[in-house]
């Protein structure tokens, strides 16, 4: 029983080590993945986020939308063409 547990533990640790320390880094270095990761980094995307506060892209988006609301306060509240007060 102890021997089989030891074998299973060794297998699990070896498997994790091979995948995370060898295969995934190799994959991350491939040109396509490297470009994709760079795009995510530039856009502030955290692919592993489970809530908006972990995702810088979401906070940037809210800031941008607030700027729109300052420029055109009624744009998200009235249908049809809305006037921009700064135009007058």
């Amino acid at each position, binding site marked *: 029983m102890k021997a089989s547990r030891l074998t299973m533990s060794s297998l699990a640790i070896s498997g994790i080590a091979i995948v995370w320390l060898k295969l995934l880094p190799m994959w991350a270095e491939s040109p396509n993945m490297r470009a994709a990761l760079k795009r995510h980094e530039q856009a502030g995307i955290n692919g*592993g986020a489970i809530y908006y*506060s972990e995702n810088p892209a979401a906070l940037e*988006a809210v800031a941008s939308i607030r700027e729109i609301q300052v420029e055109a306060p009624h744009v*998200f509240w009235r249908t049809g063409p809305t006037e921009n007060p700064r135009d007058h």
Partner: protein
Amino acid sequence: MEGSPTHLKLPVAWFECTFTIATHNTQEAAHLVLGREGHIFGRSPTPLNIGEPMLNASESSLSVPASPSFWNEMRSSEDWWAVWIGSLLLGVIVLTVQWTDSSKPVSLLKPYVAKPAQWTSSLSDALISKSGKPLTRGIITTGVLSLVAFSLAQVGMGRNLPRFLATFPVVFALAFIAQLLSEQSVIKYYNLEYPLWGLIIGFLVNVCLGAKWLQPALQTEFYVKTGLVLLGVEVLIPLLLTLGIPGICVSWVTTPIVLIVTFLFGQRVLKIKSPSLNMVISADMAVCGVSAAIATGAACRAKKEEVSLAITLSLVFTAIMMVIQPAVIVAVGMNPVVAGAWLGGTIDSTGAVAAAGEIVGPVALMTATTVKLIQNVLIGAIAFGVATYWVTRVEQREDGVRPNPWEIWYRFPKFVFGFVAISAIFSLLSLSPSLGQGVVDATTSVSKELRTWFFCLAFICIGLDVDFAEIRRNLQGGKPLVLYVCGQSLNLMLSLLMSWLMYGVLFQDATNKLIEKAESQARAKAELVAPAAPATKTPISPVKP
């Protein structure tokens, strides 16, 4: 416990049961009354002790006091302790917020609370922050802080402190490993979040070494509830109005409709035996994936296996949808704002929504992340609604008696009050743009790290304690899968219809503004990175009225 004399007496002895609660002042007794022992996202009393008080009460009901001690419950129940510990931690964080020379306030605790950072090739990069500072000290102090906070609660709840002290560091170390795995860049890119690795690591340790020796630290529900109280800081209600009426219609209207219809479909058409499994799947599909599954799972006292199953389903479908949906959008040349709202309203996971939006373009990214953010904020209201519905409508069916208001109060998961109260306080603070928002941001920067650790600890515990027979029972011939697919299909159709109606027909001015803004920002970013690079991948054209 099933079929024991205690349970057979239950329908006729409801008030005696209430008196039992009054006498012993333990939520565990109430828990038994509901017949929900073993629900790890609910309460986890020792079942053998629970049966005794009920028999005593029915034998000597005249001697019991008429009203239970509210204070005793607040001192000993796990729900309240989750509120106390969460509030204490938040109080300490807020008290340490300081205004430095820079305009943004920071909490002095920030360097002492950390989790592993994203890494690509070298594991040691996970211990260095983006700004180049070492994280090892922060991770260790987070462990110590968690140990102290949870130990306090162990004493308060009358649990075995020395055994907890001996086993908690092991569970924390496993949570550290799970986070290390989840922070690998490729894993992150494909949205394989830490709950999945928590489950796998916990399960592997259970298979290889066994988990009985870790039992004192396996307090899944307590970690979840404390994490949810901390999450309250991030549930800022004013954010619900970010996108005005279109945002309200896509998130506030569509999401609850999908949630309710999917739940009713599961109960009435598929006849899923466990309403809590049905609810957790419906919520994580309709609202926002893992975080919604955790919040509703705790609110309706779902079993740990039910939450695991719902999260696994969600992660699998998220991985599929984040590839297929943007491809369809690009292929049909959908308006980027409509596309973004559709992505935000349908893809479960917050991270995957941003990734899918980025494939379509900057406009879709901006709209998608904002719609998902509004859905994220909805989980406060949904958790409260689900908890209320559960204690008033679902649990009453188990004993066939409609509970009175006092019983409803007793059965209500109290940590939800903490979650909602913290959310309300920080929402009010956020209304003050300079002072309040600064405090909220500084608090969130620390509390979100702690919350991540607590949720990760919970998933490690689930993995360590998972019951495969229960998971097989939950599969019920693939009914959860059918529920998810049918619910998501409804979600896809309804969200698309609403997104098109709002952004393609009724609020075209808003759509054009969003396009202009995202375009100009993308251009500025592109110029900053590579002056000659194109700003967007897909052509953007304003909506013609």
